[in-house]
């Protein structure tokens, strides 16, 4: 019933009374930062004409509708000296942990989606979407296999005049490490832990597709619907997004440099090993 805030010495993020992430405060300046999940319903085609195929393994083709998953998110808040977390439950099959570590200047989103219900006979493709107030003018950047960033312009191709018939999927690009947008004052970057499709379908907004379950083959040769199961149920996917948000500034370290170092740490992480020490005392181990 009241706003919730978690944070550290670098930033604070707030959740509104509906349970959605709503704003971020850095250096005393509060900016809009909203995050939610939405899903697209997969198109059902006749698979006879090239332009009329079903959404499937090869094709992302929504049927035109975009569905919100909830108006109210259940929250549980965990605060401690090392990490502060908000556990969000969007519905029976979408949940998320938003966390801020004491000594990190980014926000971690650990999403979990699935099993995607398909009892209504409709395939679904779920995206995590971030909204900011940045006036990005249709421009955003996606990475080139973790190397340099490539500029993308919504509804535009650099070498020919394009009139997109499919406004959503036509603006989707592969994101293997980072997607970002900015204006003169603000910059938002989202790093991901696996290759995903992503886009900026409106100014200031970024989205990444986190999971999909489809019921029809797209007739590109796989001859199966993308309908993965484990133990007879639809697959559950769990993963992370790391969000770097802040003022656009030219001085070192630039936001881009911070993102790059974070990318190194997240995509080339430490290897963890565990050992049973049995009855060994600490002093002997030492």
């Amino acid at each position, binding site marked *: 019933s009241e706003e919730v805030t978690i944070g550290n010495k670098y930033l604070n993020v707030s959740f509104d009374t509906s349970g959605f992430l709503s704003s971020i405060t850095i250096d005393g300046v509060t900016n809009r930062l909203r995050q939610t999940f939405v899903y697209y319903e997969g198109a059902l085609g006749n698979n006879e004409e090239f332009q009329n195929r079903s959404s499937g*393994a*090869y094709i992302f083709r929504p049927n035109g509708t975009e569905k919100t998953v909830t108006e109210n998110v259940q929250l*549980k808040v*965990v605060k*401690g*000296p*090392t*990490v502060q*977390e908000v*556990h969000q*439950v969007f519905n029976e099959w979408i*949940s998320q*942990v938003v966390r801020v*570590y*004491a*000594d*990190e200047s980014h926000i971690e989103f650990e999403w*979990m989606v699935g099993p995607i219900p398909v009892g209504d006979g409709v395939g679904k493709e779920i995206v995590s979407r971030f909204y900011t107030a940045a006036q990005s003018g249709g421009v955003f950047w996606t990475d080139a296999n973790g190397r340099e960033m490539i500029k993308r312009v919504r509804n535009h191709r650099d070498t020919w005049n394009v009139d997109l018939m499919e406004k959503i999927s036509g603006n989707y690009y592969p994101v293997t490490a980072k997607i970002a947008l900015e204006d003169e004052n603000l910059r938002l970057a989202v790093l991901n832990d696996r*290759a995903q499709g992503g886009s900026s379908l409106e100014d200031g907004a970024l989205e990444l597709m986190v999971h999909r379950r489809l019921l029809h083959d797209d007739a*590109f040769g*796989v*001859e*199966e619907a993308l309908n*993965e199961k*484990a*133990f007879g*149920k639809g697959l*559950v996917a*769990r993963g992370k997004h790391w969000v770097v948000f802040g003022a656009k500034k030219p001085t070192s370290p630039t936001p881009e440099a911070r993102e790059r170092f974070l990318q*190194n*740490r997240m995509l*080339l*992480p*430490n*290897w*963890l*090993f*565990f*050992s*049973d*020490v*049995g009855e*060994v005392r*600490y002093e*002997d*181990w*030492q």
Partner: protein
Amino acid sequence: EPHLNMLREAMGVMQHHDAITGTEKQHVANDYARMLNRAMRACGANTKVALNQIVDPKYKRSLRSGGGLPAEHPTPYPEYTFGFESCHLLNVSKCELTESKDSFTVTLYNPLAHAGHEYVRVPVSGGRYIVRDYRNVEVAAQLVPIPESVLNLSYRFSNATSELVFLANELPPLGFKSYFVTRAIDSLDDFLHESSPPVPVTSPKVDQARAKQQAAAQQWH
């Protein structure tokens, strides 16, 4: 070398565009997962050997033996199969070793060419834990509950209800650092509760014994 080849070969197969994008048939996806798992387990033997070469021999002897190697490629270094297990199910907050043992170590190998840090998350079954580094400095650690939605996953078979979170810092470039984690026993009462099944209170004699235990626990605390 045969262990490394298994991962080399698996990575060769995974260059296929279907493996990259996930457009392979389901049974092929399952086979890719099988190949990668097998290769990772084989290479796990090599990392174990490498780490064992730089730890104290006394420590090696004191650790319980590990296993999990593919039967067709047994380790060529049987004397070195100690400790340093990987937990491949950390993505569902599950690790059999850490959630069942009262004492264990966590070792981080930093593959980057500069020093680093990481907030480590270790699945545990609750209680209180003490984390110490190699200098006997206690590291601040926090127990965070695992979200209900994860606990309720129907195919997650785990006793872990919380994650132990602590900062592993000053990780040397291309080097490793270990932490010693012990489940804390706050009182004698806890100790008795942990080490034996609960004693039914049936007679004044037992009540007296219980009171004595509690007094001792108080003193211990």
